[in-house]
């Protein structure tokens, strides 16, 4: 299977760098898989699970906020948060949901409120996905 270079970067460090065969990215308008030779493409991320498939078992990470850029040179994902699923605790997710709920409460006008509501839904579905994943792997 053809491979391509992939980088996952968070503001604090380079989380992953290497050649992979497929990456599944949680895009704002739906998850999408990237294979070698993907068309040049930029998409923002929603909170969710990013799966890296290469040699060995697929690696899963929880990502939040940022964007993915695919070009002929490979794929780069910039995420504000990138935590391997194994290190992610249920409390972290609960905290995230709580923060998002508070943000909705604090919203001053209708548009921000709607935007934050959408974000809250995304966080909730991401948390559900993470839990589902934990059940299948253990």
């Amino acid at each position, binding site marked *: 299977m053809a491979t391509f270079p992939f980088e996952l970067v*968070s503001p604090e460090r380079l989380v992953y760098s290497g050649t992979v065969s497929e990456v599944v990215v949680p895009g704002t308008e739906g998850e999408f898989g990237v294979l070698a030779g993907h068309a040049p493409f930029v*998409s923002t991320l929603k909170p969710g699970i990013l799966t890296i498939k290469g040699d060995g078992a697929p690696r899963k990470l929880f990502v939040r906020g940022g964007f993915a850029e695919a070009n002929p040179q490979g794929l780069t994902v910039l995420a*504000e948060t990138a935590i391997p699923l194994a290190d992610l605790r249920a409390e972290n997710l609960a905290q995230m949901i709580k923060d998002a709920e508070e943000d909705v409460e604090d919203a001053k006008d209708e548009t921000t409120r709607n935007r934050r509501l959408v974000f809250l839904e995304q966080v909730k579905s991401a948390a559900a996905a993470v839990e589902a994943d934990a059940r299948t792997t253990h």
Partner: protein
Amino acid sequence: MASLKDLRNRIASVKATQKITKAMQMVAAAKLRRAQQAAEAARPYAQRMESVLGNIATAVAPGPDVPALLTGTGKDETHLLLVLTAERGLCGAFNSSIVRIARERALVLMNQGKTVKFYCVGRKGYEPLRRLFPKQIVKLVELRANKGVTFADAQAIAHDLGDMFAAGEFDVATQFFSRFQSVISQVPTAQQLIPATFPEQPAAAATGASAVYDYEPGEAEILADLLPRNLAVQIFKSLLENGASEQGARMSAMDNATRNAGEMIKKQTLTYNRTRQAMITKELIEIISGAEAL
């Protein structure tokens, strides 16, 4: 003429100070390595962010959909100066050089009849600015309690700036920090944050790479999502550069201090030995002349 005891005390006190400065120098050296690593680790993110945003910003057509963070409010009446400094002193001219360029910019703007506001991060910038412009400081953020800067700190500041900008409290925001060049050279730098500016990208423009990208969702939505993030990234980058610069400046300042203390000890020891010798000679003369008189 100082007595022998005075001299001994003075030497002891300089030696104690030298030990402190030497310890501080070594601590700064260790912290510098960590700060430098952090600054380097953050670089790829900031660069990628800039290049992608630059691409989109040139591709998107100016219009009402374009966020104000990119185009500005169309005025330039109220300026916000974001002054990033350290929480602690004893690091040479590090803090004062940042404050100096911020102050110079403020005076130029005020002479042009603009309103100037300050947003201080770090006590050492706040204190001198409070004396000069007591009424213009909108906010002080202290990062003293935190061990090292995290992205969350930068995000909080960026969030604040975004809210203030949305409320129309300022038109232009500029940040002042110290760019880390090497241990002995830190360059105080001003960078405009809002409206966002991007470095020219001749490579991307020449190959036409920016034209063929597919955007999901649309360009304007991506911009609206990424610009606030970019603000946080830029502030985070400056905070990290500042961290490395601070440790570098402290290291060279403490190196100087240690060397000066060494010189002082040498001089004092010489005086001490001379005085001691002179006293012994004097006592001998007294004894001999006493014996002769008998």
